[in-house]
């Protein structure tokens, strides 16, 4: 079994809601509410869920863009809960991010060279000749022509910009990259290109991905293990086969049923099944969620498979 590089324990991110006459904190939005997760070297973990499920917030906590309210972030057996600790060990040299909106994630006033060199200058300063060499090498890796190095982001297509974002993320030889919906803003034809490319560099460089997406088709293509998130908690996690072939939680089943099928002849059948699963989700909601509508704690089903199932079905 590969080495574990990152572990989250009981991670919570709560945002206070202020209301009432005196604007006091009356409640919390529980964006992430007690998540345990681990990532191994070289693995791709898919994090799926609907928008607002807290998956993006979780990703931001992992790269250090968001502070956690409670819990532990353990990177290579070291507790790195505060920004100061992460800065000390140059955490972001190892943990990088690829953003959804490639245009917004590249500063429009900077050249490609400056964009890619930014993390190098901060984490791994080298003399200008080496730096230039490294930037050009990265352009090579992501398959962009050398002459683009002094161009500006708006001169590129969406797919090319996403490659630039990847080159920046790769600049310091990271060990984990959090990819937050990296292809959902791209055209379908370009999506596959970028995804395959991400897989290729993973094989070559041995990087782990935390792949955040709402698109299960993409997730199936990319990941080894999958965690399903709903209402800020994990409802099911396991290997790709566990999730796709043997889903246990009603929410996972519902997500899977929503994948459009290309097979026209089974359209009526698919629709009927979808309806049935929707029905089941509504009927059994109270079984699978507690009184406040929050998912139940995870229960281990097999060595790899966990699901937030009610107590009685555990006995069955």
């Amino acid at each position: 079994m590969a080495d574990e590089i990152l572990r989250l324990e009981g991670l919570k991110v709560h945002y206070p809601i202020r209301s009432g006459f005196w604007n006091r904190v009356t409640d919390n939005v529980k964006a992430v509410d007690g998540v345990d997760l681990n990532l191994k070297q070289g693995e791709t973990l898919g994090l799926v869920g609907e928008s607002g499920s807290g998956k993006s917030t979780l990703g931001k906590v992992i790269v250090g863009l968001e502070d956690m309210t409670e819990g532990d972030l353990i990177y290579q057996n070291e507790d790195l809960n505060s920004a100061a600790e992460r800065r000390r060990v140059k955490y972001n040299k190892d943990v990088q991010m690829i953003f959804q909106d490639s245009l917004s994630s590249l500063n429009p006033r900077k050249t490609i060279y400056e964009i890619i060199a930014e993390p190098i200058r901060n984490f791994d300063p080298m003399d200008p000749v080496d730096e230039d060499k490294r930037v050009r090498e990265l352009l090579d890796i992501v398959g962009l022509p050398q002459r683009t190095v002094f161009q500006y982001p708006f001169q590129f297509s969406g797919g090319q910009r996403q490659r630039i974002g990847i080159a920046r993320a790769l600049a310091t030889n990271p060990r984990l990259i959090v990819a937050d919906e990296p292809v959902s803003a791209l055209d379908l034809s370009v999506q596959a290109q970028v995804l395959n490319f991400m897989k290729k560099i993973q094989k070559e460089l041995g990087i782990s991905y935390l792949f955040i997406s709402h698109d299960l088709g993409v997730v199936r293509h990319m990941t080894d293990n999958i965690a399903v998130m709903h209402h800020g908690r994990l409802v099911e996690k396991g290997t790709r086969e566990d999730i796709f072939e043997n889903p246990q939680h009603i929410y996972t089943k519902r997500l899977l049923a929503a994948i459009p099928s290309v097979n026209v002849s089974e359209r009526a059948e698919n629709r009927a099944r979808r309806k049935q699963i929707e029905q089941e989700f509504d009927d059994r909601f109270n079984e699978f969620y507690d009184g406040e509508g929050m998912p139940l704690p995870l229960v281990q089903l097999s060595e790899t498979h966990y699901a937030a199932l009610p107590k009685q079905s555990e006995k069955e």
Partner: protein
Amino acid sequence: MRKKLKIKENVGNGGLLKRTMIREFKKDSLARYSLYTLIGILLVVFIGALFIPRASYVDVNIIDQYLAPMTDGHILGTDNGGHDIIAMLLVSARNSLVIALAVTFITFVFGTILGTITAYYGGKVDMIIMRMTDFIMILPVLMIIIVLVTIVPKYNAGTLIILMSAFYWIGTMRLVRSRVLTESQRDYVKASKTSGTSDIKIMFREILPNITSLLIAEATLSFAGNIGLETGLSFLGFGLPAGTPSLGTMINEATNPETMTAMPWTWVPAAIVILIVVLSIIFVGQALRRVADQRQSV
């Protein structure tokens, strides 16, 4: 042809801004002529004022008081101190422009730094500063400045600059704050954070370059406003001290109905200079603002 275009695109961002500006000024002839006028006036005023001896606008010469234009070699006549109007215009315009420039500079530097920091960090400090500026915005600022002008000991041009700046940085600060706030939401700021760039660098090297064109446009327009403010205060008699003439002090001759009607040459030229300068600045500023808007949409 195509190749040439590519190379041009690679010139750099400074080149890009310059080209957008040149295009805008080529398209808008009003802005173009305003720019020429403005440059012309600035050159004439700053070079011309160098050749005016101090005595000729400080010393009072009662014999030459209120000479009509074209008498004794005074092309535009003289004022109540017997000073040549043209000499007065050059020195006054220089003084007024320098004061307005200084105030614009101070308010923009201060407002930009404070606005950027509060918007970037947000939170309680931001809220407190916003409440404070909300409050100052509704105060009768003009009255307070006038009162302070009259009670500050050892009052001079520097004091006036400080007093004006003390109240007028707020507009800049609020403008910068709102723009930095939207800019901070963009992912490149997050990317810079995960790239290990320090907050100071992110604020001033990443975010600010994205709003410089806007700042240039707004600073230009605020420059026009500051000319109006200084000359207005001087006109009322609460601006530049005696011995440092301003376009406003020249216009002050018009407060006396007799000089206003019988000796219009004492104040009308100064009024016209103010109008021309301010209008040119406004038209240039409008064009710059359009440039900033275009760049925003890139």
